[in-house]
């Protein structure tokens, strides 16, 4: 980290991963969702099975007019997409792909990723408030209520894993992982996955952007590149959460030839989780707002607390 060149290279690698992986997930969503609905999905852009569809979408977004509503709070409105996007970029830097392949190794990287992704919600809130649109405001309030509710079970689930591994660093947690965790930490894993999907505002937890109710929630007034940034942040969020799930609960780089192919294992596991997130979107309908809060406070929080207690008991008795 001492040499500026190395820092620049690492930052560039994270930026490239940040620009490529979400597109990969987005394209997978296009195709998987299409086939789950008996369709083919994009077939033309780029020639082979529409692989360049999202690139074409990006080009389209760049060409569109960037509109700031007259009644909007100009600066907050314009800064909001960046506030939503940057936290995921920073979070991606702290996720290890293998014990040695991590852009920014930090002793408390698990807390770091959680803390940084929690900031992303501010972007949605700012966007919703500054748009001077009632649908945007409703969407922002739904998003705030949802993200506050699901933050707690998520942090508790991660705390359980940290407790089991005796480390706050993602590298240390994945290093302490054993297949036995798949059973032992299963409730925590379920809680984490549900909370992650809810934090990403993905179906079945997409009330903040429910298009049949509140147009597009906080992003209603956005156009062009700024709107694309919000979309990118959603897919970058899927990447971050999937990789985080893979590292925390699926053992990251553990697998055959993990010395050489560890990074590939992490990416593959993360990709599988991303496909699961996409699958949930296709299969399940949207929850109601009150069902959402019930699920968070009456199911997930007790479950996460139970998992935490179980982990604590196990750690204390075996230590």
């Amino acid at each position, binding site marked *: 980290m001492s040499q500026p060149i190395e820092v620049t290279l690492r930052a560039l690698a994270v930026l490239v991963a940040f620009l490529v992986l979400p597109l990969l997930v987005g394209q997978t969503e296009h195709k998987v969702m299409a086939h*789950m*609905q*008996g*369709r083919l999905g994009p077939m033309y852009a780029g020639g082979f099975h529409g692989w360049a569809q999202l690139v074409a979408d990006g080009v389209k977004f760049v060409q569109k007019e960037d509109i700031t509503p007259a009644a909007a709070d100009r600066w907050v409105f314009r800064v909001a997409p960046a506030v939503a996007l940057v936290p995921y970029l920073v979070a991606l830097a702290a996720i290890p792909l293998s014990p040695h392949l991590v852009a920014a190794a930090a002793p408390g990287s698990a807390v770091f990723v959680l803390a940084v992704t929690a900031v992303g919600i501010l972007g949605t809130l700012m966007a919703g408030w500054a748009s001077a649109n009632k649908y945007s405001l409703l969407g922002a309030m739904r998003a705030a209520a949802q993200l506050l509710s699901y933050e707690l079970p998520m942090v508790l689930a991660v705390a359980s894993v940290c407790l089991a591994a005796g480390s706050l660093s993602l590298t240390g947690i994945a290093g302490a992982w054993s297949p036995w965790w798949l059973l032992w930490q299963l409730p925590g894993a379920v809680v984490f996955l549900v909370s992650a999907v809810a934090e990403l505002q993905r179906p079945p937890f997409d009330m903040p952007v429910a298009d049949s109710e509140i147009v597009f929630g906080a992003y209603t007034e956005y156009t062009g590149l700024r709107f694309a940034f919000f979309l990118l942040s959603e897919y970058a969020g899927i990447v971050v959460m999937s990789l985080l799930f893979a590292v925390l609960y699926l053992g990251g780089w553990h697998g055959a030839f993990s010395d050489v192919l560890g990074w590939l294992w992490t990416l593959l596991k993360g990709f599988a989780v991303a496909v699961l997130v996409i699958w949930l979107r296709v*299969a399940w309908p949207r929850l109601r707002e009150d069902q959402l809060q019930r699920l968070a406070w009456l199911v997930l929080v007790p479950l996460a607390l139970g998992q935490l207690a179980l982990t604590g008991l196990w750690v204390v008795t075996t230590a």
Partner: protein
Amino acid sequence: MTQASRPSSRGAVPGILKGLATTAKTLVRPTHTAEYPDVPPHLPPRSRGVIALLEENCTSCMLCARECPDWCIYIDSHKETIPAAAPGGRERQRNVLDRFAIDFSLCMYCGICIEVCPFDALHWSPEFEYSELDIRDLLHEKGRLGQWMPTVPPPPALDERSADPAEIAATTRPARGASKLVTGERATAGARAERARPTRSVGDDSPSGAAGATPGEAAAAEAQARPTPPPEGEDQK
């Protein structure tokens, strides 16, 4: 699905698992997408794509134009005198089609014009790729309508052992009163057919100009079927 969606009867968990199973099954099945521009669609042979015109069969009788609910058929015609075939014979007149156009921006593809055409001048063709950038180009004149004719599928084959089609039966079967004056019977039948054509078109075109026609006994018999006895054509004089 309906059973699983009722939370009281089955609980929520089987329902959401069933949702996952359904989408997963659909994922591995072939898709239903029709890749239309690349792969031509499988249309039934007699689907209603475009209306083709067999110009030779049209007698400008205007039936189609009048029956059209959208009034999207335009017909112009004039009369032509055919000189007598034999010396001392009678001159005949026939209608010549000047313009036959269908405005496909108005057409609702009901097919009534094809149904009412007494001479099989209009046919359904399954071709459908004739969209235009300008709505005015959807007005197909008779040349364009005629170009669709080769795409018209042949009529469906008759059932085995069914009776001969009417056209063939009329030529092969001996006339009913064969013992009597065969030629006379044929001649009157032909005359009736000849007569049926111009009566309507003339009655439509110039009702006052045909006032001097003298109705024959055959026309009087036919007139019972119509509310107003139309005047006879000039060729019946």
